[in-house]
């Protein structure tokens, strides 16, 4: 009651687009369906208690022998066979152990009416099955090349050898339960389509914004001195804006203890905090060109759009989780198997931490997930990597271009040829003076061979372009250092520094 109400309120009030709402899970209606299933079961004489009592020991006997279950009068279970054994889609069904000749259920603990009802159902099922077998045989006769493996198409484990002479297991599908899943299944397909469509749209937006950012941060345009001063400073504002974003990405946590896609609530908090940070630092206002300010605003809007679809998908995933939990609680028909089936169909649906090999689906649904669930998880992952590579990546961060020895921007960068690490030429000389043979980053014995030919001019150009202030600073340091070497420390003491 509480969740259903909250769910409807959020769907109505968060300003989701109409075409999204059409795909939303109809929680209220599904809840009604569960009531109907419950009624159907009760009419069969299968109240929750009976089902629970009879299906619980079966659950345990999965690991042990089927025989012990029989000893406990467990002649009946709501448990469908293990998923691996079902080639077709999951259908909720009863498994009833019956007399092979009369189809009377064998469980002595069942009430007489229940037994009668089940017998009727079983007889009906057998007739239908015979029909099907007949038609299948017919089809096989007509298309013999398709019959290479007839075993595979048969309903699996129809019989369990307890007393093979008189006893057989029968599976009876439950109509209203099937209806429930027929309603839920297509919804998930719609939600998946929505995810795909929105992802495509957002990816396009990201690409477009990336081009805009590239344009406004375009550093040092030769020959355009006036423009240069403007974009030069904007470049640093953008770098700071993105550095702050990378420190606490909105949709993804790098925290060692708990990495993964964040929940809607966490992401919202982070986006608000980021917005706050931008205001406090006044970065947006500092940007010189109007185009830069527009692009910065678009960057924030983009994050809001992503947050919205994550919120919508997360709500739906939560609704599905709750409705299946309710289904299990009210019907004891193990709707979890439906989930296991879904997992194979939509591997993205459940967060990676909760994904098991499909062997134990029950536990994953009941434990509160550590990160966001459902399609929201995929969206958060995808969008985070898109933003990182296509927008944030346009403005290089100093940390990615620092020398592993001095941790500052690689000055007069040297590549040793063994790996991608860039070193300052002075740091390499220091390593050589120290007779260090191995590359600090990859351990290859390349240090002593390095000389002026290892200077990486391409990287040098790049660094001069994108880190003009750092380049100047290191240039000055270098001049001071060489002065110190020539004239001694005294010469460069503060106070007599040459500007």
């Amino acid at each position, binding site marked *: 009651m509480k969740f259903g109400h909250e769910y409807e309120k959020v769907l109505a009030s968060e300003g989701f687009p109409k075409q999204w709402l059409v795909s939303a899970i109809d929680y209220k209606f599904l809840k009604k369906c569960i009531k109907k299933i419950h009624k159907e079961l009760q009419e069969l004489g299968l109240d929750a208690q009976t089902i629970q009592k009879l299906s619980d020991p079966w659950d345990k006997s999965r690991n042990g022998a089927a025989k012990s279950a029989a000893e406990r009068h467990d002649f009946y279970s709501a448990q469908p066979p293990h998923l691996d054994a079902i080639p077709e889609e999951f259908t909720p069904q009863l498994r009833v152990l019956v007399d092979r000749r009369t189809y009377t259920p064998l469980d002595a603990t069942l009430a007489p009416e229940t037994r009668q009802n089940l017998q009727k159902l079983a007889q009906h099922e057998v007739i239908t099955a015979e029909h099907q077998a007949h038609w299948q045989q017919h089809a096989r006769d007509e298309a013999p090349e398709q019959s290479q493996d007839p075993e595979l198409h048969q309903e699996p484990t129809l019989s369990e050898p307890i007393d093979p002479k008189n006893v057989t297991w029968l599976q009876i599908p439950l109509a209203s339960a099937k209806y429930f899943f027929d309603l839920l299944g297509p919804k998930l397909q719609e939600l998946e389509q929505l995810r795909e469509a929105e992802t495509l749209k957002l990816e396009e937006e990201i690409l477009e914004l990336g081009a805009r950012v590239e344009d406004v941060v375009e550093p040092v345009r030769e020959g355009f001195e006036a423009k240069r001063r403007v974009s030069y400073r904007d470049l640093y504002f953008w770098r700071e804006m993105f550095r702050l974003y990378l420190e606490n990405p909105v949709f993804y946590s790098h925290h*060692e203890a708990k990495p993964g896609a964040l929940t809607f609530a966490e992401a919202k908090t982070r986006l608000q905090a980021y917005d706050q940070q931008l205001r406090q630092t006044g970065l947006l206002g500092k940007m010189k060109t109007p185009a830069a300010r527009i692009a910065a605003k678009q960057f924030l809007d983009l994050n809001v759009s992503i947050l919205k679809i994550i919120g919508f998908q997360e709500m739906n995933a939560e609704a599905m989780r709750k409705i299946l939990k309710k289904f299990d609680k009210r019907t004891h028909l193990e709707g979890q198997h439906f989930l296991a089936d879904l997992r194979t169909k939509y591997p993205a649906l459940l967060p990676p931490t909760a994904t098991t090999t499909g062997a134990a689906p029950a536990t994953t649904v009941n434990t509160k997930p550590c990160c966001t669930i459902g399609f929201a998880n995929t969206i958060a992952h995808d969008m985070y990597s898109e933003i990182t590579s296509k927008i944030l990546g346009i403005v290089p961060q100093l940390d990615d271009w620092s020398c592993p*020895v001095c*941790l*500052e921007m690689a000055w007069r960068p040297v590549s040793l040829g063994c790996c991608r690490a860039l070193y300052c030429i002075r740091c390499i000389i220091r390593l050589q003076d*120290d007779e*260090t043979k191995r590359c600090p*980053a990859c351990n290859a014995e390349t240090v002593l061979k390095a000389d002026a030919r290892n200077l990486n001019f391409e990287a040098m150009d790049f660094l001069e372009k994108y880190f003009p202030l750092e380049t100047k600073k290191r240039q000055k340091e270098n001049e001071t250092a060489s002065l110190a070497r020539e004239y001694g420390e005294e010469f460069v003491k503060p106070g007599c520094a040459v500007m």
Partner: protein
Amino acid sequence: MAAPLPKRIIKETERLQSEPVPGISAEPHEENARYFDVKVDGPSGSCYEGGEFQLELFLPDDYPMCPPRIRFLTKIYHPNIDRLGRICLDVLKNNWSPALQIRTILLSIQALLGAPNPEDPLNEAVAKQWKENQPEAIKTAREWTTLYAQKK
């Protein structure tokens, strides 16, 4: 006049404070920024779990060309750590690389607590016990942890 602190040490110290490694802390001394008080939590699942081990770490003048000097101050029963707290760890010796940092070294030390290696012993007596009667050795290590490595 003492040489100014290299940028690298300043950066490393800043990062240790702004992005601390879980279960590890390193605080520089006020009067000597090359000298750190270090605390490392025993890794969970190891016989040092629950213990907090104190170490001292010193960055020599030619750091990062040579490794930091580091030793345990807390008494510990471990085949690769001797009675003076000196540590036998390849990255602190031959396998040192200037690309390693204080944080990576401390992580290696924490990992060493989780995976003692009696085949490359520094403390012969402990290593012998570790090889001949591991359950007993682990028991002693646990006892020492309770005895000497209590959180303050």
